[in-house]
């Protein structure tokens, strides 16, 4: 880092002659290129981040081409209205950049967004006029080295943006620190803080060049600094979206085993709230091994004319939309992995538990090819329709499904109310996957349009297996604060869910708290963008 700083000073003093940055994107981009670090043992990381970015860009309806940086061809930058470089890996030296890449970068008038690492190979190249052209320069990448106590101050734990503090998670404390040399050229969006309360510029724009000083795909939980990047995408792509915040509420895991009294208690609370909401309906309840029925198997299917169907109709009558939540939300005669009970087990991904009770993600369910997934989904779909209901969307049980299954969901329903999980095989053939937390609607690489869940669910109990609190309890104010953070994104959604067995009184505080922030609960359709 010391070498870098010295070099920086030299650059500052050597700068001669004003080089004006070109203008920022002002008309909506109609094409985008994503370049990513794809080589080596961790190339899968770059690819999976790039895949997530591609999904985010689908919100803006921009056709995307995605390829490794190594496959860059001279002139590519001029063929796309906007190019994103996903700097996911720490490149050893500037030779990792394709020949001519930085020359193209300097010459292009199209939008370029440099994300994450490696900017120094461009910025510190003495043949480039980076500092003079863009009005800022990187110091270098600062992160905590656990073996070096002197680096403890390099932990960056929050970003302030639009008057809100957003979190940088513990797995992504690093930051490329930059210095603004010419505020007339370099505009800063958000301030990043390290643990010693030093302030560092966050996203920087200079003309058509953007710099994102960390990787916003990493460690994206609630109230996360990734929201800054999501919001800035509107500007990066020149999309002038009016600010609008919408919300969707799911009543979760409703199967024919649910007591009608519980549904009516929900109705009594929801009716005066006068909002559209969704009902996550599992059309066939199964307790295959009698886990909750004294060892006797218990199967209940949704049937027309039953008290349960009547109670569902009463929810529909006050604004409920039916969402198919799997068909059984478990896999027949298998513990997958818990107890074979609907709403407890996974349905479209094979799971297991290790000796300590931790989940093992085994892989696609044997026999669940595209046909079988389709048959399984449609059998539940038909059962719902046979009871006189018209499901309008999909919700993946536990959000987890194989890529094959997800593709079929995207062909059988116009949208899903969950989150995408991206799968990738690494160089060792091991399946890697990562969940995307998007604040707005997108269509993922499985072809599924997602109206995302973004603020979680009410959980008065929390989750503390073996006495270790992995998930603290969450109450309405918890979710409302998560929604408040989402307000920094101009087209954000507050997506949440509520289990039928909880005290319905929570709903009132939750709904009114979200509405109080300016979110509007709306009916859900596949036309939404």
């Amino acid at each position, binding site marked *: 880092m010391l070498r870098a700083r010295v070099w920086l000073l030299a650059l500052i003093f050597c700068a001669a002659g004003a080089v004006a940055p070109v203008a920022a994107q002002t008309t909506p981009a109609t094409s985008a290129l994503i370049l990513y670090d794809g080589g080596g043992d961790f190339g899968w990381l770059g690819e999976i981040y790039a895949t997530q970015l591609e999904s985010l860009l689908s919100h803006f309806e921009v056709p995307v081409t995605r390829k490794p940086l190594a496959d860059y061809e001279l002139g590519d930058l001029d063929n796309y209205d906007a190019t994103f470089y996903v700097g996911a890996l720490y490149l050893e030296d500037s030779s990792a950049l394709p020949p001519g890449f930085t020359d193209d970068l300097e010459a292009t008038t199209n939008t370029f967004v440099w994300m994450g690492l490696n900017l120094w190979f461009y910025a510190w190249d003495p043949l480039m006029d980076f500092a003079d052209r863009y009005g800022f320069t990187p110091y270098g990448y600062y992160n905590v080295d656990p073996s070096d106590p002197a680096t403890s101050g390099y932990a960056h734990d929050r970003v302030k943006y639009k008057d809100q503090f957003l979190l940088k998670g513990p797995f992504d404390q690093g930051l490329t620190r930059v210095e603004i040399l010419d505020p007339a050229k370099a505009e800063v969006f958000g301030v990043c803080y390290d643990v010693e309360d030093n302030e560092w510029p966050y996203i920087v724009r200079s003309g058509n060049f953007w710099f994102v000083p960390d990787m916003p795909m990493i460690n994206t939980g609630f109230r996360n600094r990734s929201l800054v990047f999501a919001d800035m995408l509107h500007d990066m792509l020149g999309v002038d979206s009016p600010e609008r915040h919408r919300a969707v509420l799911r009543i979760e895991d409703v199967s024919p085993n649910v007591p009608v009294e519980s549904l009516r208690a929900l109705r009594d609370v929801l009716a005066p709230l006068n909002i559209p909401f969704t009902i996550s309906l599992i059309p066939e309840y199964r307790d295959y091994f009698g886990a909750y029925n004294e060892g006797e198997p218990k199967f209940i299917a949704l049937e027309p004319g039953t008290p349960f169907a009547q109670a569902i109709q009463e929810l529909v009558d006050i604004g409920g939309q039916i969402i198919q939540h799997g068909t059984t939300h478990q896999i027949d005669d298998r513990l997958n992995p818990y107890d074979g009970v609907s709403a407890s087990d996974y349905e479209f991904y094979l799971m297991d538990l290790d000796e300590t009770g931790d989940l093992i993600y085994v892989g696609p369910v044997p026999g669940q*090819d*595209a*046909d079988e997934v*389709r048959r399984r989904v*449609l059998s539940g779909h038909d059962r719902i*329709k046979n009871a*006189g209901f*018209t*499901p*309008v969307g999909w919700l993946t049980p536990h959000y987890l499904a194989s890529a094959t299954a997800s593709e079929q969901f995207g*062909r*059988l*329903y*116009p949208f899903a109310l969950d989150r995408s999980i991206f799968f990738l095989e690494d160089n060792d053939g091991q399946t890697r996957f990562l969940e995307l937390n998007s604040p707005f609607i997108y269509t993922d690489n499985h072809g599924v349009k997602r109206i995302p869940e973004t603020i979680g669910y009410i959980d008065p109990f929390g989750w503390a297996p073996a006495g270790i609190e992995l998930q603290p309890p969450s109450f309405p104010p918890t979710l409302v604060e998560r929604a408040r953070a989402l307000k920094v994104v101009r087209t954000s959604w507050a997506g949440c869910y509520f289990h039928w067995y909880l005290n319905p009184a929570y709903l009132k505080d939750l709904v009114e708290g979200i509405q109080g922030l300016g979110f509007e609960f*709306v*009916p859900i*359709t*596949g*036309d*939404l*963008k």
Partner: protein
Amino acid sequence: MKTRLLSSALGLAAVLAATASLAQAQKETFGSGTNEFNMDFVEVGDAGNLADTNSRGAVSYPYRIATLEVSEDQIDKARANGLANVSSGAWAADQPAAFIHWFEAAAFVNFLNEQGGFAPAYNITWDEDNQTWRMEPWASDEAWGTYGENRFRHRDSRYFLPSEDEWYKAAYFKGGGTNAGYWAYPTAEDTAPTGVASGTDASTAVFGLRGGATAPADVALSGGLSPSGTRGQGGNVAEWLESAWDGTNNQVTEARATRGGDWFGPADELGAAAREINSPLYENDMLGFRVASVTNNLFAKRLAVEVAGADLANNAPAAEFSALRPGVGTDERTYIVRNTGAEDLENVTFAVSGPHESDFTVTLPEDGPLAAGDTAQIEVVFAPTAGSDRSLQINIVSDDPDKSPFVINLAGYGLTEEFDRDADGLNDAAEYGMSGLGFDFRVAQPELVEGLLGNATFVPLYNATEVETERLESFNEGVAAGTNAVVSNPGTYGLYNSNSIMDLNLGGVMIQKTGSNAVISVQLQTTPDILNQAFTNHGTPVELPPVEMPEDKGFLRIRALGPQ
């Protein structure tokens, strides 16, 4: 109207051309340039056919239905010609358009109508703010209403989504007579067709496909023909129907019916017994649609009626003539009968029917042909002969396949004392006579009437019977009550009471007493100048002898004895 239909006729001439690809198919062309596309229609005849045993399939008019499902290529080309906010794309090129919801299918149909200069079939608009299609039902006089009100479909649209009966008849009706019966499958047979991946062989359909790479066939290769000459009504993709699931097209967001089965599902979904319910916003890769249309004849021969410059819907509720007193005045109206079609109406007959012929003088045109663009005139004079509702119908029978008979409903009202239309207690004639005061014989106004009758004796509104019986009696009762009130409360009315001295008659003083015996004291007062000086007491008061008058009331008088 006339201008629009002329342009429609021109458009029709431009787009119609014979085709030999399918028997009796009529090819129509849409779009332009490289984005031009064709659509073939077959005419479904046997108008007035009987329904199947499940009550479906009866259609009382001829119509046309597209021989093939709408393809993705057709949607893409429509988009290139300006169709907006319609996404599909589950499949490509000549495969069926799928992943398209009902409103998007409706938008495509509207695009076809717009191309030909016809009225849109569906009253839908794109709500950009909320990113969704909005739909309103057509008003009754705009709705497709000849054969039962259908407020989803516009009466003047040429292309539309097939209703369930239209779709069903095209798929299963055997044809060749109105009582020909129905097949069980849309391949003109009672046994399930053979499932194939693609092809045009008879008794085949695209369904039950498995194997991972499965997909619907190109729309032109979607199995054998139906009895009406359509292809793919069974299998390939299921199809949206215009009809609501409950059969009544009145709630725009209500569930719709779909039919036909798909490339993935089993054979029984192709059968006449199978129908499915779906949200109009539902989409998947197995659900598409086809287009239906009026017959050319249906559009070529068209009778319309105007009154007061506005179109009159067939069998529309009558607009009343002016209400009149029998024998006092008349009201007149002229109806223009117009052939708005491109062809002559061959034999138009006019007749009247109804209970009150004597109240309407109807001058009808001569029966006979009505050439395209020509008009005929009906004159009606209303002069009621009695009170209450008067009505009559004019029936126009023609060879317009859509509107025969065309029924004009006539209605008027006779104003007499015998009827009280609004049942508010005041007869029609009286209310009509006081309309300037706000009375309306059609509208019950109980407060107004009560106010009037409460003061009835001040205005000559009662008939003799009323005055001599009920009203007079009430009046008499009122007078008696009023007299008692005055006598009991004289002070209220400025009359005598115990403190009043009012009587100066003949120089005497009259005193009214109340209560028991009277004791009177007299004080003499004097003044030398009555105009300028007040009276003052003169001497002491003199008490007069007590007067025995135990009655509650009585009058006394002190008579002046002098000076006279």
